[in-house]
Every structure is written in C-alpha cells, then in structure tokens.
C-alpha cells in the first residue's frame, strides 16, 4: 500500500516537464490578455465575473469546446470527429482523476499520478465490483471514443469530402509535428495500458482484451514469456509523445484548446474585438483551431486557387506577426464569419489589421454636398455607387413621386461618400471625418427618414452614425412599407426571378426578409437558390483585387444564382448590379427598377445586349 502513496517512475518527468511548460505559458498569456484589455473591457470583466454570465459561459464551453455543437451543424461526421477527440479526452482525464482519488484516497497529489494511474495501479486494490463495470469500463469506452475520432481525423487528411470539407487547411511544419504527436498519443496509450493490463490480467473490453491477446501472442504457454519487459518502454513512449505535444502546443493551432475557453468567458462578459483591447484580439487569434471550415465558403478559394487567403490563414499570420498582404485579399463578405465554429470576429480583425497598415497615410476627403431648400420628411441618399447606376436613381424618384412622398434628394450631383469605402480600406480616421460631416448635415435637415439605395451606405449609417430621431431604411424596406400601406401598388408578373442577396444588406445588416417578400410580390416564381448569400465580386472590401479574379468570382456566383434558370436576376445593391451586368446572360435589375417598371406599366424586362449573348455562347462553347 505504501507504493500507492508515493508512486514514481522517471518516465513521468517527460510529461511533467511538458505539462508545466504549457501551464506556465498559458498562465503568462492569460495575464497578458487580461492586462491588455481596455479600461472599459476590464470593467466589464470585473462587473460580470460573479454574475450568471459566468455560468452561461461555462455552459457554452461545454457545448462548444467539448461537444462542438456548431460543427455538428455543419457536418455530423466532422462534428463527431471534433467532439470525440475533445470530449473523449476530457472524460479520460476526468475519470482517470476520480479513479486515482478513489483508490489512493488522496485528493491533492502530482498530476502525473492520475495520468499514469494505470501504470501505478494495474490491478485494482479495491473491490472488483467497482473496478470492472466502473472505472475500467468507462476508461476503455472513452479511449475507444477518442480512437474513433482519430480514425476520422486520419480519413479527413486523405478524403476530407467525406467529412463535408472540399478543402482542408494546409498546415505549417510545427503544426504537423504537433499533429503527429497528437495522433500517436492515443494509440500508444492503448498499447501501454493494454500491455499493463495484459501483464496483470486486468482491464476492460478494450485494454483487457487487447492485453490478453498480446500476452497470448507472446506466450502460448502461460508464464513462458511475459509482457512485463514491454510495459515500461511503452509508458516511456507515451510520456514522450505527451511531452512533444505539450511543448509544441503553444506554437500551433492546438493553442486553441485552452484559449477558446477563455475567449468564451470574456465574450460572454460583453468584450469584443477592438483597437483598444489588443489583448482580446490576441486571444482571438489563439482561439482559432484552424479547423478549415472557413475555406469552402470563401469564394476566393475557387477564384484564387492555391492562394492561402482565407480567414484561418489570416488569423495565423497575425498571430505569428507575419508581414504579409493577406489582410487585403478578402472581399469582406463575411461568409466565413457566419460559419466559424469559434465565433471569431473575423471581419473586424481584418479591419483592424488594415487600419494598422494604413496608419499615418492621409486620405483625401471629398466634401459633402450640403443641402438646400426646405425640410422634407424623407431624405434620399443615393451614394456614390448608385450614381454609377442612374436607372436606380430614376426608378427611386418615380417611386417617391408615385407614392406622393415628401422627399429630398440629398446628393443629386453625387460627390457624397458615406465613409465606408475608406473604413474598409483601413482609413478609419478619414472615414470618421466624413461621418461627422454627414451626420451633422443629416440631423440639421429635419428629416425623419433616411432612405438609401446602397447597402454599403446603409450599413455604415446603421453601424457608425448616431442619428437620434431619424430612421434609416434601405430602399427595399421602404418600398415594402409603401406597398403594405397601399401607397403604391405593384403587379405580380409571370416571370421567373432569382434574388441575389448583397453581402452588406443580408449578412452585413440583417435585412433578409424584406427583399424576399418583395420578390413574392413582383414575380410569380422565385428560383432563388437556398444557399448563403454570395459575394458578387465587386466588393469594396478588396481594394487590391484584380478584375480577372473579380470576374471569376462573379461568374461563379452567377452560376449558382441562375441554376434555377430564372428570366431575370434581381439584386438590391448598385455595386452588385454593376458587377454582374457585363457577365450575366440574363438581365440584372435592382428592386427599384423592377418596381418602377411595374408602376409605370413599362416592359417588365430590360433588353439584353445581343453581342453580349454571343460572347457568352462562345465562352460556354470553350
């Protein structure tokens, strides 16, 4: 019995060194993360830590860090893979610990004792009734769970499609090293435990059976040759791979294991990525598990094959403080953010990284046009993009007039910028100056309602402007209101149409149902594909993206959007219309145009260019 209270073998040192290293590293990191929060965020943390939010965060940690519920939503097999590895390992640690406490009678003891408990106590010193159906069984059960997840992880390396991923993350050398260690940990643990159990005639269905098989393979005659000499080397091997995994962990994607839990707590307390809290941004980069779920939804994966520009690569690059241009290779469509299982604020992180780069560069600010004339109830803001699609402006003025609205055109001569293009380019100071000017001007106008045709402006007005007493609507929302209040009447026509949801309007601003409702009012058949909204390729979020790539993105998106063979493609953004126009075989219209055509009794479709159609036929023929 004395042995049980001071069990020790030199091999445990390897594990202990590795584990201590990880512990010290993340303790240091934790201090740094908290230290580098803004005063406001520190206050949030202090005020929330002893509230129900902590329990909610704990619940979320169990759901997401252990059970990986969000990944289950993406693909069941992928979810199972992540769950089995995380939850299975966690349960092995937990049950191993309880077992060691139960049998040793000591609560406080070196951690290695519970990790290597099976080595120190191969045969239970206590009643079989507790050991066999209890600890032995469950330890084997969870080891099997982990091993099944490992099998899926190996399949994922070679056939990721089976787990719902077309492409997986390309790993760095240090990640591969850690991955190899991780893959080895559990098979070696299985062998070590089985050898121990085989030598002692213990273990459950997995380790017991395998141990028995190993033992009988070595010695058909009982006690001829024993497993004993293999036991210690296997435990040395197990301890070595643990050491390898632990010393590489802080520098690899596996750093997310401890970091993600911290992130969940801080996020629950209301902390968000911001320039003022670099600690939280750093924590976010550590929390990326590089699972690769963000790669497939990224349209640049197809348009820029082989280029590693997706969010997981971006997060890695800022975590390792690499000086690349990767923050610019993004259309800011936020499709990746939508699927990120960790819930990282990927768009804001890119934004901040751009602002860091653009620091100090001066932007030329175009003056705001200023208004004249008396106050009207509605202020219509076309925005610079809408000025490139004059038919939208014309349609909107027809709609305003038809509805008998009291409205004023804020920027009839153009030259009004909402500031978002500058913001997206990282020039936040310039964006702010524009915002201040326009905001004051809007408020001085005395209008109650600000209607804009541009989702980019709409998002900027909603997110950055402070406009008390003024409602901001995108024109799709406004038009729907007019129809519902019977101020205008549109007729449904027999055409088949598909709706292209602009990124800035749908995912960006949450305006999702209104355009779809308008679709049903305008068209008899709606063939909008049931997919997450796509980027048209024209994005202002990617100032450096070349036109060939943009066109490839547009073609790819059009292919999906027109899969139901619609007669017309409807969008709600002048930039999307401009981008799709030259590549689309069917007409592309904005809602405003479709509604205005219905009001004025004009033909429901604009004619498409004949020569354009020939060009398409040729391209299809190639």
């Amino acid at each position, binding site marked *: 019995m004395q042995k049980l209270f001071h069990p020790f073998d030199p091999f445990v040192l390897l594990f202990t060194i590795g584990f201590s290293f990880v512990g010290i590293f993340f303790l240091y990191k934790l201090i740094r993360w908290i230290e580098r929060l803004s005063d406001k965020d520190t206050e949030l943390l202090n005020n929330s830590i002893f509230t129900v939010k902590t329990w909610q965060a704990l619940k979320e940690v169990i759901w997401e860090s252990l059970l990986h519920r969000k990944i289950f939503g993406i693909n069941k097999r992928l979810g199972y893979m992540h769950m089995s590895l995380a939850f299975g390992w966690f349960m092995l640690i937990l049950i191993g610990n309880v077992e060691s406490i139960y049998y040793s009678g000591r609560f406080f003891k070196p951690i290695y004792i519970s990790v290597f408990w099976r080595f120190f106590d191969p045969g239970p010193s206590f009643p079989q009734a507790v050991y066999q159906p209890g600890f032995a069984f469950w330890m084997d059960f969870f080891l099997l769970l982990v091993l099944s997840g490992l099998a899926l992880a190996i399949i994922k390396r070679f056939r990721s499609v089976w787990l719902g991923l077309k492409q997986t993350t390309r790993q760095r050398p240090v990640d591969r090293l850690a991955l190899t260690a991780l893959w080895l940990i559990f098979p070696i643990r299985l062998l070590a435990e089985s050898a121990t159990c085989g030598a002692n005639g213990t273990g459950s269905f997995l380790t017991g059976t395998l141990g028995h098989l190993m033992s009988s393979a070595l010695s058909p005659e009982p006690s001829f040759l024993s497993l004993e000499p293999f036991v210690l080397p296997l435990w040395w091997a197990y301890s070595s791979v643990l050491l390898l995994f632990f010393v590489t962990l802080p520098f690899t994607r596996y750093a997310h294991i401890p970091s993600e839990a911290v992130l969940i707590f801080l996020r629950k307390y209301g902390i968000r990525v911001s320039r003022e809290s670099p600690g939280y941004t750093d924590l976010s980069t550590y929390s990326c598990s590089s699972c690769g779920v963000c790669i497939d939804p990224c349209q640049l994966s197809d348009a820029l094959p082989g280029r590693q520009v997706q969010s997981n690569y971006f997060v890695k690059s800022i975590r390792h403080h690499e000086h690349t241009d990767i923050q610019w290779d993004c259309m800011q469509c936020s499709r990746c953010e939508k699927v990120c299982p960790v819930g990282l604020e990927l768009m804001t992180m890119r934004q901040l990284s751009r602002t860091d780069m653009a620091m100090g560069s001066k932007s030329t600010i175009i003056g705001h046009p200023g208004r004249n004339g008396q106050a009207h109830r509605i202020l219509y803001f076309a925005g610079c993009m809408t000025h490139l699609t*004059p038919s939208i402006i014309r349609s909107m003025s027809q709609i305003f007039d038809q509805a008998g609205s009291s409205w004023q055109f804020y920027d009839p001569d153009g030259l009004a910028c909402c500031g978002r293009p500058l913001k997206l380019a990282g020039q936040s100071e310039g964006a702010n100056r524009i915002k201040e000017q326009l905001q004051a001007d809007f408020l001085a106008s005395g209008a109650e309602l600000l209607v804009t045709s541009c989702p980019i402006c709409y998002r900027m007005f909603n997110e950055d402007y402070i406009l008390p007493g003024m409602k901001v609507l995108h024109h799709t929302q406004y038009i729907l209101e007019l129809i519902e209040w019977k101020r205008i009447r549109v007729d449904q026509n027999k055409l088949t149409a598909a709706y292209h949801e602009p990124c800035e309007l749908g995912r960006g601003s949450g305006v999702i149902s209104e355009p779809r409702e308008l679709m049903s009012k305008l068209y008899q058949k709606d063939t909008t594909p049931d997919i997450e909204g796509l980027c048209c390729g024209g994005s202002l979020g990617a100032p450096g993206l070349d*036109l060939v790539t943009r066109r490839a993105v547009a073609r790819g998106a059009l292919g999906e959007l027109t899969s139901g063979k619609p007669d017309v493609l409807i969008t709600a953004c002048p930039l999307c219309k401009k981008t799709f126009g030259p590549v689309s075989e069917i007409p592309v219209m904005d809602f405003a145009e479709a509604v205005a055509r219905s009001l004025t009794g004009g033909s429901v479709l604009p004619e498409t*260019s004949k020569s354009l159609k020939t*060009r398409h036929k*040729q391209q299809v023929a190639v």
Partner: protein
Amino acid sequence: MLDGREYRITVIGAGPAGAAAAISAAAMSMEVDWYDKENRPGGKLNDYHQLFPDRATADQILADFDGRTDAIEIKKHFGTAVNRIETDNRQLILLSDNKIVGSADAVIVATGFDFFDARLKEEFGYGIYDHVITSPDLEKILKTNPEDLRKEGADPVSIAFVHCVGSRDQQAGINYCSRLCCITGIRQAIGIKELFPSCKVVNFYIDIRAFGSGYEELYREAQEKYKIQFIRGRVSEASENQQHRILLKAEDTLMARPLKLTVDWLVLLVGMVPSCTQVQIDNHQCTDQETGFYQPVNVFTGSRIAGLPGIFMAGACGGPMSIPEAIASGRSAAMEAWQYLKDR
C-alpha cells in the same frame, strides 16, 4: 495569269472587306456567291456619314463598290444570313438557320463587327438619358438630319465625347484597343464644330492613338483650327439635370484635379466587338477566347481561319480594322483562297 475558272468561292458579308474580296475573286474569274444578312450591300458603311482621314463621304465608297460589283459576274444572295458552315470532304456546305443554301470550294468570312453595347457602362446613362448617344448614333444623325442636334431650335452650347467606351476597359471585359474610336471622335468633333462653330466641344481621352496615315494631322487640326478641347481623363459618371442637360464628373489627370461639366449632348465613342452574326464552322472554336474575334492560322502570313482548310477571314471579323485595311484584307483573302484552291 490568275485563272480560277473552275473554283467556286463564297463570300459572307457585303461590307467593305466582303465587297473587296468578292470583286477580287471575280476578277480572278472564280465563280463567286456573295451573301449578306441585309437586303443591300455596304454593311455599316450605309450608316456612315464621312470617313477619315480625308473625310470622303461613305456614299462615294459605296457607289464605287456598286459600280465594280455590277460590272463583273457575282451571284448576289442578299437577305440570307449564312450562319453555319459544315465541311463535307472537300466541299463546304453553307447553312442558313439549319437550311442548306449552297456549297463552295472555299469561303471568305467577312462578317464584320458590332458596336459595343453602351448600356453595359450604365454610369454614362446610355438608354436612360435621351441626350446620351453613341458614335454610330451621331453618325446617323450627321448623315440624315443634323438639325436633330439643336434643342428647341437653338444650337447646342456644348458637347462632350468620351473615348474608349468598351475599349481597353477591363471592367467591361474588353481588354483590347479598338484603335479607330480615337480618330472617329476627332472627325466627329470637327463635324460638330463645322455645323455649330460656337459650340464648345470637349474630348475625354485616355491617350490618343492616331496611328493611320493622316490621322495625326487631323488630330492637330482639330485642336489648332477647330479649337476642340482634349482632356486626358476618364469620365466617371453622367447624370441628367432638370433642364435635361448632362452633368459629367471626370478627372483631368494632367492637372490632377476633379472636374464637373454640363453639356447638351454626351457622345460615347464605342469600341468594336465581335459580330453577333458570326458564322459557326462545324463545331470548331475558331474565335479567340479572350476577344471573341476570328483567329488566323498565322497573324503574319495567313488569313486562313485557324484549324480550318478552305475558310478565310477578311476585315473586322478578325479584330478592329479601318476601312482601307478591311478592303486590303478582303483582297488578300481572295488571293490566298485562289492559291489554296490551286495547290490543294
């Protein structure tokens, strides 16, 4: 002595290149079948007013072609759009809407080009504002009734031309230069100045490509004699004010400053794109993937269409080309066809 009496050749297209090819082939005594989708020969020349650099009228050239084609034996099949050729052994079968209309030993394709659809550059407001027109629109107005340019009887005060609309424009998916819009703009600007001397005429250009003989001189004359203003810079957008005048926003890239300008008419100098009535030959991809124009077997030495025996190309179906170039290319295609038939 070039004697092609036993050869039957078909020319598709009756614009300048097609006419030159047909005349030359007939002069070599070949049996010529001449097709065009329109009911009369001449192609786009029928809509042109004057030609550069000497500003001869298009009608003069048309009359010259008519005289020559009437004086020689050419079988004319106008109003028939040949849109498919099938190769059958050494015979080429011509089809119009899947109906066989004839056969030949060799074919010269001279289907020309189309003007870029300016509606694809919506920011200029073509098809939206009445006073935004294209260069071919202006050409028709100048030819038929220049009085249409007046507004309520008054001379136009200012007119702006925008160069490179659907030419050298990656955004429109057209990376090549149409070459002839520059000189067209210069000539049309002079035409406007002659009609309305007090009218202010401004050309917005990226750079002027006055490559042909006499072009540079015309460009200089436009500036010195006619006081036409040339501003380097792109027009970013056009809008209409309440007086139906067109408000332009542009950048003067030499002065490096933005500018606004209000004009009575905005003329878009549209580029040249492949014709929508191109002929499909078997199931060959015989056009350039990037531009959509036909590709010759060798850009230096052969006008035979790449990969196809017996089929030659002439004129702007192979890319932007001036009228003298199109005529020369029609002649050379006829010569090459004769050589091909003789040697085969």
